[in-house]
């Protein structure tokens, strides 16, 4: 006797604990198998781009913090680079090195969150997340020493950073550099050869390089398909030419290789931080306010600057009409574009793989909807 079944459509979200924010999907199942996914965005839309049009260039820094709230420093950096390019500001070297240290630490923190929540989505409530949060806590404490805030940093200013790092920061940074490799090793021992993780993530949600490039997917997801594309190497900004690091690449294109890639990227980021600490020299951290005042008036024009964020290419497009606030501010957010291939990744997989894939893509709804 055969059982007759028909597809059923389920509405997941917007309030769902495993969608990493307010994200809604209309998923059609045939039994346990997904046959269609329709992502619906916009539940966290706060109109940041519009808000920027009535704020001065420095005030917009506070808006970038709130976009991707697990990588605020990287958002700061991208936006500040766009303003510097638009206004032709020459940044102070010490400020740039501090910017790089802060943003590489933030990349580590963001990847730690990504790994922790990937394993959390697999159903391991708490344990691996606690290990990654323990390390992230150290980074957040360093940010508190630097700029008084842990998430909404607003640390960078056009021309550098707002203030030099205190001695306390250098002390804890050096102990972090010493301790962090052991912590990553521990995390890897816990997870990398775990059979449950193998069976749940290997071969799930596979992307081919062609698909990824055609949909302009960037970041760890693109590199996990075997394309060595990293803006820090391919279009260096700040002082990334001066430091020496590798771009880890995997070619399986599944969730497991995304996880492995993030672990390796954390090690590379630590390498960059170490070199920055060697290169940094005493000096001013931002130009005198005679050169870069609070109210910047860039010449008429527009510019697009992209940096390698923790989730992919994070681009800022600024149009200036010569006044004190941007005429238009547009953000190319990596999370949003990485989500566009959700249907291609998920059709044919099982219900349980849906959340694992979410953890693998590592989206942040604050950045998707802005």
């Amino acid at each position: 006797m055969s059982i007759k079944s028909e597809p059923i459509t389920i509405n997941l979200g917007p309030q769902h604990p495993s969608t990493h924010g307010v994200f809604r999907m209309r998923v059609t199942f045939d039994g346990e198998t997904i046959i269609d996914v329709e992502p619906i965005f916009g539940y966290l839309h706060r109109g940041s781009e519009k808000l920027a049009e009535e704020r001065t260039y420095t005030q917009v820094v506070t808006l970038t913090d709130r976009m991707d709230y697990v990588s605020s420093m990287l958002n700061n950096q991208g936006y500040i680079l766009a303003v510097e390019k638009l206004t032709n500001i020459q940044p102070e070297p010490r400020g740039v090195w501090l910017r790089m240290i802060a943003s590489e630490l933030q990349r580590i923190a963001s990847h730690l969150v990504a790994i922790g929540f990937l394993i959390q989505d697999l159903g391991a409530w708490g344990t691996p997340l606690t290990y990654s949060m323990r390390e992230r806590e150290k980074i957040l404490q360093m940010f508190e020493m630097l700029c008084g805030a842990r998430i909404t940093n607003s640390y960078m200013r056009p021309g550098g950073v707002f203030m030099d790092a205190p001695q306390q920061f250098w002390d804890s940074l050096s102990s972090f550099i010493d301790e962090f490799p052991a912590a990553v090793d521990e995390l890897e021992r816990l997870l990398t050869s775990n059979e449950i993780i193998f069976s749940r993530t290997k071969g799930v949600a596979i992307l081919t390089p062609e698909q990824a490039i055609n949909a302009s997917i960037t970041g760890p997801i693109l590199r996990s398909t075997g394309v060595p594309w990293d803006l820090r190497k391919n279009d260096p900004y700040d002082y990334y030419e001066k430091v020496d690091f590798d771009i880890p690449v995997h070619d399986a294109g599944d969730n497991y290789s995304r996880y492995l890639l993030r672990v390796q990227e954390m090690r590379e980021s630590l390498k960059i931080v170490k070199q920055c600490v060697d290169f940094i020299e005493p000096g001013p951290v931002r130009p005198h306010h005679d050169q870069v005042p609070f109210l910047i008036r860039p010449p008429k024009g527009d510019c697009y600057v992209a940096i390698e964020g923790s989730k992919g290419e994070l681009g800022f497009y600024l149009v200036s009409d010569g006044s004190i606030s941007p005429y238009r501010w547009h953000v190319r957010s990596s999370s949003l574009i990485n989500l566009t291939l959700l249907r291609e990744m998920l059709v044919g997989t099982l219900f349980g793989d849906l959340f694992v894939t979410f953890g693998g893509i590592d989206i942040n709804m604050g950045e998707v909807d802005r």
Partner: protein
Amino acid sequence: MIGFGLIKGLSVTFRNLFSPVFTVQYPDKRVGVFGLAKSKNKSVFELIKNEPKQFLFAFIGLAKVKVKVEQFPRFRGNEFVWYDDRCTACASCAKYCPLGIIEIVTHASGENLQAGENYAIDKFDIDTGRCMFCGLCVEACPYDALHMGTDFERGNYHRAKLVLNKETLISQDKNPSSWFRPQFEEKEYNPWDSDLSDYKDAGRHEKPSYEKIKQRWVNKRKFNG
């Protein structure tokens, strides 16, 4: 070999079972007898003698002590520190605030004009209910009159009570954070130990006296011929 990865992972969790605890119970921590004695700076015997009830509570694991989380001097807290004597009512802070939540109302004071007191402040309101603690107002203040505070946990049931008005700002404890105040950091300042109630300690430079300013003006005029 199947299962080996699991065992390897479990060995990590097993080792961490015996490592020191890194999580913090907040805001209160449950303590035993020794923890309670230590938090009260007493020996266990004193505790039994003086506070037998507390001792019993601690013995069955019901005693709680307040926990202080580790913080750093640049912490931007839910509070502002404002020095009436330093403020000239220039309203730079109000102009630089991205949310426009600082409200200043002044009138011409008519006295002490050259010492920067052209305006008397009638109203100085900061609506902390809408503030995002970005610190741009502090960065903007040219006279070091406004500082970020270090207090937090100021939850309230009424929005109106979140508005810091002039009287509150003058009367409250002054523990400014060293955010954008390099002069504090030079002195190894720690906001939780010291109280900066004197406005003279809070600035990069002292507010000049009327006599001094007069002298300077006179000299300058002389110099310019």
